[in-house]
């Protein structure tokens, strides 16, 4: 632990780099924990007209009405039915609270900044633009997401 901290300071990055990881299909993604407000089970989603397909609608979160995005749809991955492990991760980015529907939530991880490599520039995967980097954890790779990119601009309603 001590060694690790020193290592981090040497990198000039002393802030905690904690990530919430979640699973979509075969991949595990990581989201900076500072954006995460809470994790809730699946809720009744009210559809809203005139929004992109990946916006599933809005939910009533203790009286607050917040939009919900299906991350599979956002990444253009094949859709699957929601089950009892499907979760909504409520994140707060810029001035918006938005729920993210994911297959399941995995764990909270420390990924030191120097373990995150820039995303590969090659390949045309739709999800590539949402990536901030590839986080190496042991011999595995977590795809670190850029939350701002994920939400996109408010005007970005037609894809």
């Amino acid at each position, binding site marked *: 632990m001590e060694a690790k901290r020193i290592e981090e300071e040497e990198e000039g990055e002393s802030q905690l780099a904690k990530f919430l990881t979640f699973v979509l299909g075969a991949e595990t993604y990581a989201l900076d924990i500072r954006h995460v407000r809470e994790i809730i089970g699946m809720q009744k989603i009210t*559809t*809203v007209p005139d929004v992109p397909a990946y916006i599933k609608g809005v939910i009533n979160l203790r009286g607050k009405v917040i939009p919900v995005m299906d991350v599979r749809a956002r990444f253009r991955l094949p859709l699957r039915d929601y089950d009892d492990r499907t979760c909504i991760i409520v994140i707060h980015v810029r001035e918006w609270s938005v729920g993210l529907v994911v297959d399941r939530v995995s764990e909270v991880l420390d990924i030191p900044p120097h373990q995150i490599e820039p995303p590969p520039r090659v390949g045309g995967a739709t999800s590539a633009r949402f990536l901030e980097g590839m986080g190496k954890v042991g011999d595995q790779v977590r795809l670190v997401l850029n939350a701002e990119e994920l939400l996109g601009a*408010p005007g970005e309603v037609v894809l």
Partner: protein
Amino acid sequence: MDDETREIVSSFVAESREAIDEVEPLLIEMSASGEAPNADVIARVFRLFHSMKGSASYLQFGSIERITHRAETVLVDLRTGTAAPTPALVEALCQVLDAVRARLAQVMETGIDEDESGELERLGFSLEEISRRSVPSGVESVTPVPTVARASVATPIVLSAVTVATPVSESPSAVVVLPLVAEEAVAAPEAHAVAAPSEARHADESTTDGVSLADLVEPFIIEGRDLLDACEQALLSLETDGEASGPVATAFRALHSFKGNCGFLGYVEIERLAHAAETLLEAVKEGEVPRSPDVIGALLTSVDALRTAVSRLPGDSSFPEGAIRAAALVQVESDARGVMGQTRIGRILIERGDINASDLVEALDADRAPVGTVLAERGLVTPARLDAALGEQAQRRGVTARAEARQVEKPQTSLRVDVGKLDALMDLVGELIIAETAVIHAPSSHGAVSSQELPKALAQLDRITRSLQDVAMSLRMVPIDATFRKMIRVVRDVANKQGKQVALRVEGEETEVDKTVAEIIGDPLVHLLRNAVDHGIEMPEVRAARGKPVEGTLKLTASHVGGEIWVRIQDDGGGISRTRVLEKAVERGLVTAAAAPSLSDADVFAFIFEAGFSTAAAVTDISGRGVGMDVVKRQIERVKGRIDIASVPEQGTTITLRIPLTLAIIEGMVVRVGDTSFTIPLLCIRESVVPRSKDVTHLADGEEIVRIRGQLLSVLRMHRFYGIEPLHERLEDGILVVVEDGGQAVCLFVDELIGQRQTVIKGLSGFLGDPRSLSGCTVLGDGRISLILDVAGLIGAVPRAA
């Protein structure tokens, strides 16, 4: 700005805005009452300026502080009768208020108060000028006007050496001082006029004081030398170690004690230089002035000068030559407050040898005007040389262009709440907690859910919830008087400009409206009142000819009527000419000439709100261009309000704005389309019908027209509009909700009606962009979300029925 500062600044801005809104009508009242200003009114206006000044000074908003100080002085003059509340003076005070208001917006934005254009200073100067002229000159010669006396206090002794050359007659009313050097503070040459009397007074003081305090001088000289030595040492250590705060404090303390001693012994001139240096040191301490070699140099020069002055005591209390330069430098650097790291024009001029130090001091001390301008005006420096120096200054500065301060006042982000309301809220929250406990424990304590306690506790909870809702809503309610007060100025300005006499009577200003409503109706009210004065109230001679009082009356009232606020503007002017409105309407094709006579008055007057509609023969700078009324209507519609007009020729016009009490809760009809629930504001619903197939006509383009009570209406299939899978495709299986807005109606086809609900409006997340024709959403009793329809938007989306 850090958060704390921002908070302080924002509360200062909010308070000041309130103060200004309060002062303005009082001022106007004062001028209206004419000759004998009410002492109480003056005192109130004075207090408001005074407290604004205090806060500005605390926050180091220099230009606001100075201008409010000046205004305050003028108020004192009014009280003592050395100034009279002439229209010109009131006008000047109003201008000052406007300028401060604009400045507040800037301060709110940037957190700094910079009078870059020198506008405030100019206003301040013209204010004093007008104040001085507001009384006949006879009075002035008997009692020296306080403003003048004050100016003389700021005039240093060195003047005596210089002013001789400047004829008194040259003290012009240079109200328009060109802001040549924007950041140099403003000067008013008024100091000349008063130089002579102030000299005399100083002379008196020093002789009497000098004699009576002679035996105290010896200790003063000894102590003074020590203090100056301490000060010098501290300054020198500052030169080597620019960061340390200790030396500044030491120097400041030493100088301060020295100054105190001087003051006590009546060495006014020495005291003044010490004071100037102290002020500069303080600015250095506060970080307002950089610890540049220029600044420290100026301070050291003044310490030298002070030492020389002390060494001549007690015999000669006059000021040594070097002191003039020292004073000049100190003054120059002090002026650098807030403008960091920039060489002052005065210093550049001295360095270039264009002017001598005493001229500079004089120019600086005359008042706070662009010093270069003052010097140029007095012929002390040629324009060419000034330009050269300015060029050098600009060069040294690297010319930093600053974005124009945005003049737009941002909507207030904070709100004053009556403490009583907060107390009520706290009480209810207390009750709520008790009731909640009762509900939680009711089943368990009696072992059975069916106990008598639970229904009772639930009833209690329900009652508290309702009260809580009421109180919470009331927190948003503010008295409308702040909005109304602004109108006093509007009416006065327009009436003055037009040469009309108008008395504005305000009633019901204590009526509470939703904060948003209070903010939004401000602009429409301004338009309507302007119109009333411009088009409504006739010129005095016309009124006299019509047998009406020469002075027109404008009544602005607010009242609660049912679930609405009625704001009524009533004038006793010429009224709206039905004939002329109709002529114009026909001309613009809004109505056919044949149909025109059958229209009701209300329908006719409604044309006024059409864009570009004007019956005014002459376009004035106030109104008549036909813009405005349509904007008024749109604004009022934004808060779901309506406008009624009634008018009788030659007797006047009454315009009533009817606005719902609150925007946060609406009565709505919840309907279902497929899986989606929509809420339609009840106010927009005319009726709901199940159509018979024989009433439905299908047009070739697929549009459906339904006949309801003899009227043909377009059908808007909600499921198609929003792309929802419906329960029913056939019109006869579902239900048609007839909604109307702005005189147009359509039928919305929905699957079923769920029922009528009080709904709390919530905005849709900005993340969702702008879905068509939705004004928000609401959470229903079962926790489901219902989308609120924007009926006006929906109607706009439907092609007009033939």
